[in-house]
């Protein structure tokens, strides 16, 4: 059923006490045989109820079929499956293919937008795209050049097309979009170009703008109510952002919104994080630089901010706060709580009450993290909620033109955008992580519109005095704030995880392996090397009564830049140390979907 709202209906909906999520998205997401949204569900759990493939038989997994996208750059995100149709997207030029799963994957339609290739030049870290979204019979693709196009899901015909940003000043897109109710919520990339971050909601019916909320600037432009927008239990007060910057720097101050979005239909709140303040040279932007590096909870209808929590005030390391917010209902001290769990680039795993923004847990999810001794958890303290910065690793305190050495994690964070998964069966989070440290030297830069605005030199290396590898795949207890188990990986784990009711967790590696591990113990149960390194996210679906696992290969992204040549020279004598070996010794560019199955026919019903 079409769900087109006119403004009268929208007004009615606003006044209604009941929250309606987008009916079509809710309906399709509820079917566990589909993969109707990049994040698995609105809560971003990346958990599937499917259990045909389980910890006992996953060792028999084999390749069912493959599909080449014809594009050779970093492939992030995953396909969607709605009904019999699979939707596969690519990095720039952002092609979309609709494959008929009931007809041997025949291409029903393909869409290739015409984009000015100049946009590639202002994408900071490869031309990745984290996938399409589905709503109201439409496939939504937010292209690199910030064009948002709505395609008829059955025919690929353009329904409407709008432009959400300006690549001439460095505004680009890499993220997926979030359809909520009658709107679609959209972010922007470009923190390395001094872009002013914001989130915009457009009406699904025709692409017209509904609301826009900047991350920095005057209260009205941020959709902040100084009395009712809360930060750790207190109103943020007037001009909370303007007071935290010197002069007009907030205008080119970053706080971009290129990560994942989640939604709680009961609270009607949308959750996301904001990115680094621009530039990377902290001395050039005194103050807390609000609201960069912040978890935001906003009303889905109006965009008004319910609460903020700034994780890394006055960032000195490029620890963007954009990673996914995973929404779960779990017990703490015998009481059921509505939780939000977030694994930040800064190396801290946060658990908050998602209704109020109360901070419950903030603990390191990689023991290597050394820039902070921890977060002040005392509500009476004037530093409540702030991380205590270790002087030795403070690039601001050491100052411009000083090389601060041995900071853990590196700028790519203990975890980047690659999303974690949550299993309600184990109450554990499965987190792909980086295990990389850095030297960081900030220096003065000038701002030129549309040009990189970075202001620091950094060099990265595997975490010292550890296993020598550059990644870990961990299981995390978000209530205790503890690592349950940790699997060392030679390279950063840059692939989104999938947890299933079959008691297994899947993830990909930069060498190109798809791996399945036991959700309880982490024991490796299966691995298969796909044609290129994996930075995509694992998904699952059912077709013809049979469960399949899908993963995009195609090495690239930030991992492809930093790791392609290896982080340190594989000198004689040191080359034997696994972690120093370069990724180019293991894999090459590619662009391929690999779909896995168990041997044999679909199990009979019942």
């Amino acid at each position, binding site marked *: 059923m079409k769900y087109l709202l006119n403004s009268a209906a929208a007004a009615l909906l606003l006044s209604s006490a009941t929250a309606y999520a987008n009916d079509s998205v809710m309906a399709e997401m509820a079917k566990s045989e589909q993969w109707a949204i990049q994040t698995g569900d609105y809560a971003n759990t990346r958990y599937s109820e499917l259990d045909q493939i389980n910890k006992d038989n996953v060792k028999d997994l084999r390749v069912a079929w493959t599909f080449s996208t014809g594009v050779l750059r970093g492939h992030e995100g995953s396909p969607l499956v709605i009904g019999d149709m699979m939707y596969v997207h690519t990095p720039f*030029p952002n092609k979309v293919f609709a494959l008929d799963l009931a007809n041997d994957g025949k291409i029903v339609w393909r869409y290739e937008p015409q984009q000015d290739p100049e946009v590639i030049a202002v994408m900071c870290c490869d031309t990745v795209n984290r996938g399409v979204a589905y709503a109201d019979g439409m496939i939504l693709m937010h292209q690199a050049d910030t064009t948002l196009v709505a395609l008829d899901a059955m025919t690929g015909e353009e329904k409407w097309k709008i432009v959400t940003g300006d690549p001439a000043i460095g505004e680009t897109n890499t993220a997926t979009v979030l359809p909520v109710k009658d709107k679609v919520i959209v972010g922007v990339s470009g923190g390395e170009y001094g872009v002013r971050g914001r989130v915009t909601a457009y009406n699904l019916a025709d692409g017209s703008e509904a609301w826009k909320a900047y991350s920095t600037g005057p209260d009205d432009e941020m959709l902040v109510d100084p009395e009712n927008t809360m930060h750790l239990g207190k109103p943020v007060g007037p001009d909370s952002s303007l007071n935290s910057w010197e002069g007009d720097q907030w205008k080119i101050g970053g706080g971009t919104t290129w990560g994942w979005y989640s939604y709680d239909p009961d609270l009607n709140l949308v959750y996301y994080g904001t990115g680094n303040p621009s530039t990377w040279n902290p001395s050039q932007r005194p103050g807390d630089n609000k609201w960069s590096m912040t978890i935001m909870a906003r009303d889905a209808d109006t965009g008004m901010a319910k609460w903020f929590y700034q994780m890394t005030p006055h960032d000195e390391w490029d620890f963007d706060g954009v990673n996914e917010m995973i929404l779960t209902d779990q017990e703490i001290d015998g009481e059921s709580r509505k939780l939000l769990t977030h694994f930040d680039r800064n190396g801290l795993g946060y658990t908050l009450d998602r209704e109020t923004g109360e901070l419950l847990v903030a603990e390191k999810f990689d023991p290597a993290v050394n820039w902070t001794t921890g977060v002040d958890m005392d509500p009476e303290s004037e530093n409540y909620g702030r991380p205590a910065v270790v002087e030795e690793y403070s690039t601001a305190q050491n100052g411009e033109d000083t090389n601060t050495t041995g900071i853990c994690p590196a700028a790519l964070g203990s975890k980047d955008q690659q999303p974690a998964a949550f299993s309600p069966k184990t109450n554990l989070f499965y987190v792909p992580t980086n295990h990389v440290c850095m030297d960081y030297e900030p220096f003065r830069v000038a701002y*030129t519109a549309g040009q990189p605005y970075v202001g620091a*030199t950094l060099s990265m290396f595997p975490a010292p005095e550890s296993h020598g590898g550059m990644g870990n795949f961990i299981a995390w207890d978000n209530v205790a704030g503890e690592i349950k188990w940790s699997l060392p990986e030679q390279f950063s784990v840059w692939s989104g995880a999938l947890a299933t009711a079959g008691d297994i967790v899947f993830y990909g590696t930069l060498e190109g392996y798809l791996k399945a591990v036991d959700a309880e113990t982490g024991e490796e149960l299966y691995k298969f090397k796909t044609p290129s390194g994996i930075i995509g996210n694992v998904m699952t679906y059912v077709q013809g009564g049979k469960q399949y696992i899908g993963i995009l290969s195609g090495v690239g992204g930030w991992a492809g830049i930093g790791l392609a040549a290896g982080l340190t020279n594989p000198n004689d004598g040191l080359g034997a140390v696994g972690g120093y070996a370069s990724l180019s010794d293991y894999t090459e560019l590619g662009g391929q979907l690999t779909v896995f199955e168990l041997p044999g026919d679909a199990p009979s019903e019942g």
Partner: protein
Amino acid sequence: MNATTSLAALAFAVLLAGQAAAQSETTTLPNGMDITPDYQEYGRWYNAEGIPTYKFDDEGAIDFATFNGYRRYSAECHVCHGPDGEGSTYAPALKESVLRMDYYDFQQVVASGKQEVNTAQNQVMPAFGTNKNVWCYIDDIYAYLLARGTDDLPRGRPAKKGPKSDEFREQEDSCMSM
């Protein structure tokens, strides 16, 4: 404190195991250019033809301009071309490019950018001619890439650097404030 000390020790070990940073005996590149430093201007070294080059002193310290090239490269270029001029999954290794390319061609590509968009690849390099963070230091970046290309300078941050001269500073201030 402990971490830093051990890390410094590790970095030192890497240097020892690797190549010592020093001017090599061979000074002619595959493209025929002689990179022997001949004279200094505004704190930068040039060969007899006025092409930027690098110079190590007797203690193995690289000249400041080349060190500065390392910093600017790592801020402006590495997000595509990878650390230390080594290339990435999609952008070429510039430490190799400078051995083949002529200095003036190098300048032209950096100033105007480059596009190779076809069915096989989507490569676009922006034009940096108006970006002071790049253009004020283009000779430094070039000299740094030369030093990387000849392997006279090992990967990573140069271990020792010469002093920043007053005339380098003056020229920098005047360029950045233009």
